[in-house]
């Protein structure tokens, strides 16, 4: 009983419970035939939301006003350029990954440079940056659809003992993010900044340096996700990132991370990402249209934020 009691106090448990309920409901509807297929699809598509969600979570943890709207553009640019660089050549897979990560790092630096130098709120800084990054992606892409190297395409679409590779990658990175948040000095620092920027500065935390690293981390994760997603879907598309703008924020919120900052939750992002995908497929199997799916998604987000409450009380 104690286990249940302590589990129910963890905010992330609810997103898993919800995901599980939806999973069962979908499978029951199809008479159990789709269990494996549905689970694999859910893990695969959730993996991409998880990757961008983790990055966004780090930024949101920094406190009110911190958000990265540049995520979709970064994904597109990294996917486009990495595929172009690899030229369908298997030997260039790793260098291609390095290129994607480097693009992320540059975008992240640009984001924070704008925030700091122009003293503008992150939302408008990352927005301006995303316009430029998106254009760069359009310019490099030129409407061509370059295929990923065969080995990479194979890796991203296949499974090991039934688990999609991309989900495994997401798992490794989630564990890494968890350690970073829970065990390291850096993790403590971003949580402190998110609770009170002023108190963090007065406790001797290098606030600017920490925020700088965080924005780079978010962009790098987005770039890496773009690299995987482009390889998975057989080529980069210019709109491939667009649905991840709202999705990256939504999974963070539903996953139990405090929107007011200071408290983040890696596990919740898994639950939320699976849930978001499963809700869509459940409504699909029940024959509901895209409209109902979107409305449900929106209402869920609002319900979660209303239930979770707003800013932490010491701010404003």
């Amino acid at each position, binding site marked *: 009983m104690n286990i249940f009691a302590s589990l129910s106090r963890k905010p992330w448990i609810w997103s898993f419970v919800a995901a599980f309920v939806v999973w069962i409901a979908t499978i029951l509807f199809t008479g159990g035939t789709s269990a494996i297929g549905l689970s694999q699809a859910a893990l695969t598509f959730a993996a991409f939301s998880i990757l961008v969600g983790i990055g966004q979570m780090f930024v949101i943890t920094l406190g009110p006003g911190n958000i990265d709207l540049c995520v979709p553009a970064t994904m597109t640019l990294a996917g486009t350029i990495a595929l172009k660089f690899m030229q369908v050549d298997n030997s260039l897979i790793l260098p291609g990954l390095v290129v994607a990560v480097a693009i992320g790092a540059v975008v992240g630096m640009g984001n924070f440079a704008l925030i700091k130098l122009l003293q503008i709120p992150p*939302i*408008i800084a990352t927005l301006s940056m995303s316009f430029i990054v998106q254009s760069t992606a359009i310019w490099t892409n030129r409407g061509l659809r370059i295929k990923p190297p065969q080995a990479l395409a194979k890796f991203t679409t296949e499974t090991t003992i039934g688990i999609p590779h991309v989900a495994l990658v997401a798992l490794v990175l989630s564990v890494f993010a968890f350690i970073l948040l829970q065990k390291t000095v850096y993790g403590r620092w971003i949580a402190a900044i998110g609770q009170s920027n002023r108190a963090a500065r007065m406790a001797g935390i290098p606030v600017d340096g920490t925020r700088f690293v965080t924005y780079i981390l978010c962009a790098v994760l987005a770039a890496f996700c773009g690299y995987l997603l482009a390889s998975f879907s057989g080529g980069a598309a210019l709109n491939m990132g667009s649905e991840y703008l709202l999705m990256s924020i939504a999974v963070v919120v539903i996953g139990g991370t405090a929107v007011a900052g200071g408290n983040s939750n890696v596990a919740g992002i898994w639950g939320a990402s699976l849930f978001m995908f499963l809700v869509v497929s459940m409504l699909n199997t029940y024959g509901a249209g895209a409209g109902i799916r979107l409305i449900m998604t929106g209402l869920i987000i609002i319900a979660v934020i209303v239930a979770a409450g707003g800013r932490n009380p010491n701010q404003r």
Partner: protein
Amino acid sequence: MKRALPSDSIRLLIPALSLTILLIAVFYLQPRAMSYVGLNLLFNLAVPIALATIAQMLIMTVNDLDLSMGTFVSFVACVAATFLQATPVIGVLILVAAIATYAALGVLIHVRTLPSIVVTLGMSFVWGGLAVLILPAPGGHAPEWARAVMISRPPLVPMAIIACVVIAMVAHFVIMRSSIGVILRGVGGNARSVERAGWSILGARAATYALAAFFAILAGISLVGLTTSADANIALRYTLLSIAGVILGGGEFTGGRVSPIGAVIGALTLTLAGSFLSFLRISPDWQIGAQGAILIVVLGLRLLLNRLENREKRS
């Protein structure tokens, strides 16, 4: 006098200057644009963007942000192209309900002290879903009157210009000149002292949201008037464009410092930036990028000006 210009005028200076320079550049590159038809073509699409920018500006007046502006305008466009055209009464009822929803959002955000960004993010899914329900595939027809207004050809000055001037004037009157607008801006500037003077902040926020919804509805209807038909994704870019427009026009995210005239100028500048680049024969690939670059340059200029002003004040 110590200052030649009050800070409100300085706030308008840079947006006006950027628009003028851009306009001169466009005329230089493409002299044919300097005609009735040319101007109308240049600024046609600016009308709905300007209205959406005003709506966003209202939300920003009370220190909030609306991430659902684009989907809401799309939703309104879908309603306008279907219900408002076929059964006007139901159409109007839907739009009134939409305004009420916005007011309720304002109340919810205030009472529960929720971050407006997340609530409107959720609403963006809801509006998008409703739009898809109403119009699953692109189609519908613009109401005759909306179409008639948008393509009318008044003498001497093109419709687009007149519309933008009227929008700016009306918004300026409501927000900057009327006694109610003062209270709304006061909430953004110093909510505590407004409350101490005996005003209801809750009411002010609800009113602001409702007013914003009204302007966004006008944006949706005028957009349909231009495009004749609608689809659920017709105005998704408006969320980002409207925020950028407000900022370009000298508005700020916090502190109730906004400028309706500036916001309209900001919307015009963003619209013009695209045409400018196509006249430059730069590939359309860079259109969005140019909007970003213009945003950064203008913000940089503003920072510079603020610094100079502060230095002057201190000395």
